[in-house]
């Protein structure tokens, strides 16, 4: 098993967010809002099998949905963002996120 860190970054405002990993719901929260002082809304750590995992993110309050398949061993950090154009962006990373 390895840890997948999923962080919600920019663009959330009183939103409901649902995250599933390999079909299993691992995160569901309402009123998710980005703290503009650090560009971070929330985060969750999920234990997953090593190797490829499929992550699906849904923001029903905006009718948004996106999915990604990533190697959680290589890239154990996943940023979720609602872009300026109003779409969901999922960005895996090999390094931890920093905020200020």
């Amino acid at each position: 098993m390895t840890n997948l860190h999923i962080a919600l970054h920019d663009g959330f405002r009183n939103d409901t967010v649902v995250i599933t990993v390999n079909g299993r719901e691992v995160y569901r929260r309402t009123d998710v809002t980005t703290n503009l002082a650090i560009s971070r809304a929330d985060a969750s750590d999920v234990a997953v099998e090593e190797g490829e995992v499929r992550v699906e993110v849904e923001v029903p309050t905006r009718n948004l949905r996106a999915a990604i398949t990533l190697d959680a061993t290589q890239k154990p950090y996943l940023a979720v963002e609602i872009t300026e154009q109003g779409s969901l962006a999922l960005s895996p990373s090999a390094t931890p996120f920093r905020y200020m």
Partner: protein
Amino acid sequence: MNHSDPTGGTGQVSTSAYTYGGAGADYSDPTLVEAVGGEAMEREISVEETAQMLAAEAANAQMGPSGVEGTAETQLPAQPIPGQPVIPLPPHIPLPMRPVSGRYRSPASSFQLELRVDVDGRRPMRRVSGDFYQISGATTNYFGSFIVNSPAVSVGPAAVTIRGLGEYTFAAGAPVVQVTIPRRNIARPPAPATVQFFSTSGAPGTSYHCPFESAYFRTVRLETDCVSDVGTPVFSSYNTGSLPSGGPARTLSVVSAFAEAGIQMLPTAGGDVIHIGEAGDARWSDAELHASMERHFTLWRDLPQWAVWLLVAQLHEYGPGLLGIMFDQRGRQRQGCAVFHAGLGGVTPQKLREQLFTYVHELGHCFNLLHSWQKALATPPGTNRPNALSWMNYPWRYPLGGEAAFWAAFPFQFDDGELVHLRHAFRNRIIMGGNDFAVGAGLEDTSFLATPLRDVSGLRLEISGPKSLALGEPVVLKLSLSLADGAAKTVHPHLHPNLGAVQVAIRKPDGRVVAYDPIIDHCMGRAETQIGPGEAIEDSAYIGYGHDGFYFDQAGIYQIRAIYPALDGSQVASNILSLRVRHPVTAAEEELAELFFGEAQGMLLALLGSDAESLAGGVKAFEEVLAKHGKHPMANYARLVLGVNAAREFKTITPETETRLAVRRPKAEESAQLLSAAIQSGLLDPITQTMAMTRLADCQASLGDEKAAAETRDKLARQAARKAAAAAR
């Protein structure tokens, strides 16, 4: 003194004479302030003024080149004394002139004015701003602020004059600001500024005599405390030449970094060592930080003040990835921030650089600055600048090459928009404990109307609309996106401001800048399209009414600019559209304005009609327009709204039917009649005209009038062909 308006807009006579006529050259580039001594005429001048100028030139000749004053010795004529050897005088070395930028303050009277002049010196932002304080007995209250965003700067041999229309936090009767500052060389103390307010018709209002106070635009007391478990040194200074960077090498501390921006940070008593026990489990939460601030920040008060607390701590509960936070986001906000050495601590050049950056960045939030890529999230929204080489960006988010590229180019400074905010933001938008975080964080938003310093996006956004409108007449903006250079580009097609991407700023006749805020936001999914040479994406948008009500509700000159956020993060600024809203002249025009200005009418114009019960009053008003003013051109807007709505099937929820749904069928005949007249009026913009004609053809077809429908579609096709031919040319 008029206590309701410190500009004296009710016609108060100036208390001190306006002594400089502003006849000098208009140098919009303030860097020329030091360099230019001559004058160029920008208007006809009287003989009296000519005499004054000749006298000034004569004095100038005595004073030395470029209007620089000489010493008393060098002004004496060099007359040889008989019988004495002639000793040559030493060459005249002119003394440099003082910059005029800085902070000035009038003596305490009924109103006190703090004035900030920013036209020369380091990175001049070409602005003048000020705050009024009302003094009553032993109490002083903040009254309001103003800023002149685009002043004319005239430089003469004896004085600098800065003049322009101000934007105010209150309704100023005399909104034109003129600042006159005598020129002094560096051997003499700085001269006071005379501030004279004028009405827009040129009538003088109040004047203020403001002695020089400081070369800094603001002064803020800074208290720094440290937590007991921080195992690495608190940041002191960093030499920016230690690692590659984009600016000159210099040693910077937090204090000197802000000093470069024109902000004086005065370190005050502090230096408390806070026991880590206050954080409970050695990881700080925001609530614990706030409680600690209230306990240890010596200067903390529950009111707005120019004082800020910086806590150096080890670890936040979000982990070592959180390098710093402006945690004070409840009550009177922005009075405190913290930095965390779990991620920042160390003494290598990289660590010292990161410490400097984070300390300044968090304090920047306390001044109500948002991240560079989030300026649009301010209220009112600003312009995102993700490429900014600024303290307020994230180096690792830098779109033009990531962290290494950012540091290699970063000159260790705030960007221009942030400098404008730091130096000139309305007082409550910046003072710690003033507006909530992100509210009013975008005074730079008024620069929304300023032309970008650089735009290499390759895209061009053009807006157009009527030059002149009757009061109450709907304002429809046409937006067109095309290529600025030859290469095809991928763009998103969402031009309508209601789709959430394009922002529209409106400068009202009183100088206030507001953002158009649509009553309905449509969240759009990601869409991309190619745009090639000669092609354009177009849309039209009704922007007369939004969340804030009617935007064009008074007669006068308006300015409009739109910003298109491109897929690469570029903020493509449109041209500025000037629009004049005319005063109603006749009783009919006055009545029409009344009939168009209801809230329900605004909603109906934005929605292009509705059967909603709550908007029935608006429908009635438009029916009255048709009944009483049917021949007036404005009646065609009512026809458009009623005609488009009549053409559609309209569903409403009702408890009265089994399905709980009431469906009103399209009223094709009524719609065709209304739309035909609106189309024939020639009043509609081309895109609305096309939409109306399409609906009309559908109505005609549904009525069985295939001939009329075919004719309408024919006209549409001819219009489209003409447009395509024009685009090809």
